[in-house]
């Protein structure tokens, strides 16, 4: 097996272990949450035999270890159990299957925006280091980091939706119904999520480009008489991308957190608003399922980042 494959297998195994440990911890912790799910669904004055039947149907009368095993083996079959209060009795997997594509669309849209903005801003700032445009780009980046995304959402709504009527202030058209509609109605939420990330990314790219430009192999390439654009493309940019891509992987945690609030603001029926609804309804199995799905997404994205890094720099795997 080539070294890179071995390395990536190790990373994947690590991610799976993290997922398993994460599932165990959130499962145990949520069992400690206040309130009896049976009483939450059936009402405080439910007849004892109904409560007992409910507890039996949902395996709540089994020991904790057995409950975890039942839940985990269901999980491996894509079965998250039944929702309790939020959508009485509908399998959670159906809820998630309906919501996940929407969140994935908005999230990807935001990442693409952030990458597009930061590649431009970071590169320009690095190439024009110390000039006015560098100062401007760096200042915008600091401002971007300092704006909470949910506040930025409202500022965007105020200017671009209520002021100029360019985009809808509320509501989202699913990409399954209309792709152009999804891009249009998803623009403001995606921008609100993207802006703070773009700030972090472009700062990272600028630092990384300047750092790479001072390396010895770049000096050597220059001394060969290669043109500046050639050196930039082949020697600096590619190598500078590695820390940049790694930061994108790290920022996914914040992106998904932002998604939760932003989906609420724009009325997007994604995974984030499902989780918030479940939180208010105290629908523990659904909260649990959403948490696990979010964790899985983070781990998947970071694995994709590992793949990308190995592709960019095969030395990494050794």
């Amino acid at each position, binding site marked *: 097996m080539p070294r890179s494959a071995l390395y990536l297998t190790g990373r994947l195994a690590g991610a799976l272990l*993290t997922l398993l440990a994460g599932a165990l911890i959130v499962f145990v912790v949520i069992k400690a949450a206040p309130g009896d799910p049976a009483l939450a669904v059936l009402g405080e004055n439910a007849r004892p035999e109904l409560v007992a039947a409910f507890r039996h149907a949902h395996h709540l009368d089994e020991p904790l270890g057995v409950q975890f095993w039942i839940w985990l083996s269901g999980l491996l079959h894509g079965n998250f159990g039944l929702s309790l209060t939020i959508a009485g009795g509908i399998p959670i997997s159906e809820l998630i299957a309906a919501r996940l594509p929407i969140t994935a669309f908005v999230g990807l849209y935001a990442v693409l925006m952030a990458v597009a903005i930061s590649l431009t801003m970071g590169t320009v700032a690095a190439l024009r280091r110390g000039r006015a445009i560098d100062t401007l780009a760096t200042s915008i980046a600091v401002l971007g980091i300092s704006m909470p995304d949910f506040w930025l959402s409202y500022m965007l709504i105020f200017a671009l939706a209520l002021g100029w009527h360019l985009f809808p202030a509320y509501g989202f058209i699913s990409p399954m119904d209309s792709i152009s509609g999804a891009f249009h109605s998803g623009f403001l939420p995606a921008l609100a999520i993207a802006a703070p990330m773009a700030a972090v990314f472009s700062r990272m790219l600028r630092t990384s480009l300047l750092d790479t430009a001072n390396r010895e192999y770049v000096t050597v390439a220059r001394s060969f008489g290669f043109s500046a654009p050639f050196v930039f493309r082949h020697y600096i940019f590619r190598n500078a991308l590695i820390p940049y891509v790694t930061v994108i992987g790290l920022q996914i945690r914040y992106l998904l957190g932002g998604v939760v609030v932003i989906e609420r603001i724009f009325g997007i029926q994604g995974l984030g608003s499902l989780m918030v609804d479940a939180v208010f309804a105290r629908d523990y199995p659904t909260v649990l399922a959403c*948490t696990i799905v979010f964790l899985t997404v983070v781990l998947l994205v970071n694995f994709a980042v590992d793949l990308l890094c190995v592709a960019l720099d095969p030395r990494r795997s050794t």
Partner: protein
Amino acid sequence: MTPRRNQLSRLLASFLGNPTAVLGAGITAFMILAATLGAALMPYGPDHTDFLDLLSAPSLSHPFGTDSFGRDVLTRVLYGARVSLLLSATGIAIAASAGVALGMVSAYKGGYVDMLLMRFADLLFAFPSFVLALFLMVVLGFGALNVSIAIALTYFPIFARLGRNMTLLVREEPFVQAARLMAEPTPLILMREILPNIAAPLIVQATIGIAFGIVIEAGLSFLGVGVQPPTPSLGVIMADGREYFARAPWVLTMTGATISCALLGLNLFGDGLRDLMDPRLRQRTQS
């Protein structure tokens, strides 16, 4: 002048020579002053209602306008900032003390303890931070104190990692070896020899952490699962302003702008402190 004082004055001079750091420190100091003393200077109380003056736009008597109960938004923001800052600082203080303590022990002991603690920190770190905070609010219950605990648990892994890595760097230094040879007890070595030498990056991290905590508090309270009204926190005031955003945008706008200012100050201050502590990094990024 003793060498230590000499070093301090050099640090101070270098700090004053960094305009962004000074700006950051200024904004941060102003924000802290406003949050702690500002409310006392206001002629209104945070719950003082005036039904003849509902949702009025910013003016001289109400610089941030009034809300749907005719309450002065600036006064509420000042009280709210105090609550938000207190909750964030408490959370970060818990995260820092627990995280650094465990990280230091982890690095010093090594072996199984180290592996288990760091795996646990990595695990917490893999969850999206806001999702983890939201999950914790379900388990702990909504409310101000639990916001602090949620902030502490989401930020704990960062301090644990940092504390561990810095301790690993310092533990092989001659002065630590000397203390070990003198058979100083481990807790004493950790507290007296190692902690003062790793304090600088921890302080930078705490500055950034407080900014993070303010955002988490605002986010949770904005959704309605954090601080509960009528206690004003910045998130609570924003959630309130959201209800009538189209009619009276200033409530949400001004509160959010206050948060942005505070974050800007903390971020600039943190960046400045980091530059100060790592001159090598500053040269690399600026020259």
